[in-house]
């Protein structure tokens, strides 16, 4: 699993990247009450706003971590946004993407580096 400075994680699965937010990010957001997912099949660029999360406190955007195509979204989150608090690094993944430039992954952190990053 790789981690970004935007508090997202990426996990490779069957040639695609599964993307979600970290336990640390979920704790900072507080109780998540709304998730808006992108359409499947759209092409996105790194840093595009692809997901909106609203917690009891505020709205936040989740950015595309790399360039690619959104192949699947976790529609269970729409009906049950609280999954993001319950299992952010497991069941509550946001979307899967086929990435177009694997070199964009080079800067991402491993778990130890991410733990150090969040201090």
């Amino acid at each position, binding site marked *: 699993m790789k981690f970004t400075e935007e508090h997202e994680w990426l996990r490779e699965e069957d040639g695609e990247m599964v993307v979600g937010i970290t336990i640390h990010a979920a704790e900072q957001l507080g*109780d998540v*009450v*709304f998730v*808006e997912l992108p359409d499947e099949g759209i092409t996105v660029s790194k840093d595009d706003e692809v997901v909106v999360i609203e917690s*009891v*406190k505020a*709205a936040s955007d989740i950015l595309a971590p790399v360039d690619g195509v959104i192949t699947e979204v976790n529609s269970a989150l729409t009906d049950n946004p609280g999954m993001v608090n319950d299992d952010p690094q497991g069941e509550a993944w946001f979307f899967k993407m086929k990435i177009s430039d694997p070199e964009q992954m080079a800067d991402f952190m491993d778990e130890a580096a991410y733990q150090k990053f969040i201090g």
Partner: protein
Amino acid sequence: MDALKHTPLYDLHVELGAKMVPFAGYDMPVQYPMGVMKEHLHTRAAAGLFDVSHMGQVILSGADWEAVARAFETLVPMDVLGLEDGRQRYGFFTNEAGGIEDDLMFARRGEDILVVVNAACKQADIARLKAALEPDVRVTPLEDRALIALQGPGAEAVLAGLDARAAAMRFMDVADLELGGTAVWASRSGYTGEDGYEISVAPGDAEALVRALLAQDAVEAIGLGARDSLRLEAGLCLYGHDIDAATNPVEAALTWAIQKVRRQGGARAGGFPGAAAILAALDSGAARKRVGLLPEGRAPMREGVVIYDAAEGGTAVGTVTSGGFGPTVGGPVAMGYVAAQAGAIGTSLWGEVRGKRLPLSVAKLPFVAAGFKR
């Protein structure tokens, strides 16, 4: 910027693991480890304890009740003189344009009035009171006195276990109680829509009292985050958001707080700042009004969302002034101002969120039925 002030319960909040945030010049607990959602639901199910010591508490005293009441009536459009001893009322300071300078609670304690005002407005309120009332009426701010709220259906049993007189109080009664040997001033009121009490206590007694209350199974510490979602579901205004100096009480749907005796034809009609504007608005109605707004989808509509009368095109007819997720409702809730012709309960409107018009309807307030013991 000045250093943030601490309430007498600051150390306890930190010990309990609260997330502290700046609010109205104080370092205040926005939530505890339980989290906003569970804190909110706990308050509606059992009893929530809130530190609201940042709010202003002021005693007005003078020659006798009539002198104090008549003086205070020059600043608020409420029936103060007719308030019975041991009773409390909601009110607000008005300005010459008929706008609301702050909203408040005032209680008659013998010959005195105890006024509780918003934290962010308290310096201005104290200055306003002193300028208008002194020297005939003394204005005594209780700078360090703590104020805690115990709210929820379990509040009565908790307080009555410490002083049986708590159970005999009705909604908006005030009384002196002895809670485990600590003398307090209690009112049966609050800001959650639930039955409950607000308890004014000397700063040195506050922590021990709060620890004793938290030791009871029904009671959990609740932060400002849940206080906001509770009051929003209860349809209660947040000063500076839902009402302000440019909002008159008629458009704010607060005319219930202006008793007949201060209205046109009443024995003490007018005689408060902005009386001409407010009495005229009472007569003619307002061009816009504060209403409940219920988004149909799951997306919260927060403060500032513009409301339209059509899904595309159409006209902007209003704005959300408070909005978020209502844990008891189980979905988003909001309130705001809409043009009077768009304000009937059930009217379909649209709020623009992130560039998209999402449907909502004008809804009756409160969103959650009040649990007051009248």
